[in-house]
């Protein structure tokens, strides 16, 4: 096959794969009256911004909550997992193998089941329907991943660097803070990106732990739309488009971190 032909085939395949994404955007601009047209309009030629107006009117608080919850999850995840990664990579704690094993197993526990346990606990503590509660629950998706990424990354930091810090009289904490963390910037970025994206996308914890709260995230905003006004699909899809912005930004700004996060460790070359 000629190279240009391959490119053409590649573009074609990508177009097929991304058709649902295009369709979401198309529907978000479609007028209510055209929504059930037969055949459906393939291009939003006589489009409307009504859907996006509805987002501005109704969904901004949800988006704000999601942003806060995402940032909170990032902070908690990095604070908990970076020191652990340092210890596992450089300080040779006894029982490291067991802990790494527990972390791997933790990743395999279905979220629905965690949600039920969390619900029982939160009900007793009275922290249902709060952003803080949701941050805690969302971080469980990211913490095991974070520790494993930090461990893998920090293992690659040359021992000489740590030894030099020690000779200069730096204690373990000082070494971690002023030497290891700055060098591990890439790992911090990867972990933060994924923690944010998972918290932003979370639906399971939101619907179980925050179903009746005043601080609901955007995923519940969309879910409520689907439940309530089945007819206004342009508003639903417009919200979906807006909710996809973080993922899109991530792909544009931090593509190499994303690929690294997906493959990290599952394949080691």
């Amino acid at each position: 096959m000629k190279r240009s032909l391959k490119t053409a085939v590649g573009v074609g395949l990508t177009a097929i794969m991304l058709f649902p994404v295009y369709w979401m955007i198309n529907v978000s601009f479609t007028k209510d009256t055209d929504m059930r047209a037969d055949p459906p309009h393939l291009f939003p030629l006589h489009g409307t911004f009504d859907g996006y107006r509805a987002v501005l009117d109704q969904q901004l608080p949800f988006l704000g909550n999601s942003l806060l919850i995402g940032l909170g999850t990032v902070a908690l995840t990095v604070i908990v997992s970076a020191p652990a990664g340092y210890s596992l990579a450089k300080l040779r704690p006894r029982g490291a193998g067991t802990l790494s094993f527990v972390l791997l197993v933790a990743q395999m526990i279905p979220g629905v089941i965690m949600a039920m346990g969390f619900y029982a606990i939160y009900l007793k503590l009275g922290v249902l329907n709060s952003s803080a509660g949701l941050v805690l629950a969302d971080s469980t998706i990211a913490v095991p991943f974070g520790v494993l990424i930090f461990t893998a990354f920090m293992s690659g930091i040359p021992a000489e660097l740590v030894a030099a810090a020690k000779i200069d009289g730096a204690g373990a904490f000082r070494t971690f803070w002023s030497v290891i963390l700055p060098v591990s910037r890439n790992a911090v970025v990867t972990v933060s990106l994924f923690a944010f994206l998972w918290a932003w996308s979370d639906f399971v914890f939101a619907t179980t732990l925050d179903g009746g709260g005043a601080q609901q995230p955007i995923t519940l905003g969309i879910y409520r739309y689907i439940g309530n006004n089945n007819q206004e699909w342009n508003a639903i899809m417009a919200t979906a488009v807006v909710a996809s912005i973080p993922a899109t930004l991530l792909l544009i700004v931090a593509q190499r971190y994303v690929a690294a996060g997906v493959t990290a460790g599952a394949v080691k070359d």
Partner: protein
Amino acid sequence: MAPHVTTRASVPAMPETEAGFGRTSRARSSGQWTAWAFLAPVVVYLIAFYAYPLYRNLDLSLHRYTVRSFVQGGAPFSGLDNYRTVFDSPTFWPALTHTAVFTGVSLVFQFSIGMALAIFFHQHFRLSATLRALFLVPWLLPLIVSASTWSWMLNSDSGIVNTALGVFGIGPVNWLTSPDWSLASVTIANIWIGIPFNLVLLYSGLQSIPSEIYEAAALDGATHWSRFWRVTFPLLRPVSAITLLLGLIYTLKVFDIIWIMTRGGPADGSTTLATWSYRLGFGNLLPSFGPGAAVGNLLIILAMVFGLLYIRMQRRTLR
């Protein structure tokens, strides 16, 4: 969540540690204190936010909870009654079968399409890196976004899918509203979400195959097809196994897509263990937390079996 997910990547368990500087035993024990001081947050975290919720879940499944005793405590111990209720329920076998079909069919298609795409993109051509990155989009979108988009595309009357099928004279299919099709619908959506993950993992596996092997095979006159079956496929076996097992573990726990698209219905047509567990605990006005937790624990056991298999295989690959 995507992957979320639904899908998450993981990293090998044992880090390589550097050789020490020959410390004395007192220094070593103080080193242990420091090491565990850094681990303390994550250990506390795991106990409070993993072990405790799981313990609560186990506790729920072993007691006869009502809404009242759920709030106030004091539910009577009921042994394995909740598990018996679950096994005797008419939903049990359908849910188990649907879980198996949903997982199996998703894996077969995700993996084979992912493999084909990985091989295609592995030939270097213009835009190949950019297009490959675009393929990640479905995996990165929030699941509620993908699920609601697919819901509208599969709408019986106004969905684009039925319109497209109509062009070929295939009558309107009630994708989401017929119990015969709902499982197929959620499986299709799930395959779409899972392809990128398979593509990325298999692509990185392909990259680690030295190109000299292909050159040698080409010199021996191997055709494209035999090169794939005799060179690529065997060399990709470890990576393929890991991709499939990870996919299996993640697909077993898929909840969002199914719940958002069909709520496991109609008439339990797309109920899996994950959605059933949720429906028992939260989906009805009168929740039955005990059986819900019991179903959840069964699902954990299932995921764990394959999880341990994955960890074993990963360790073997690393050696």
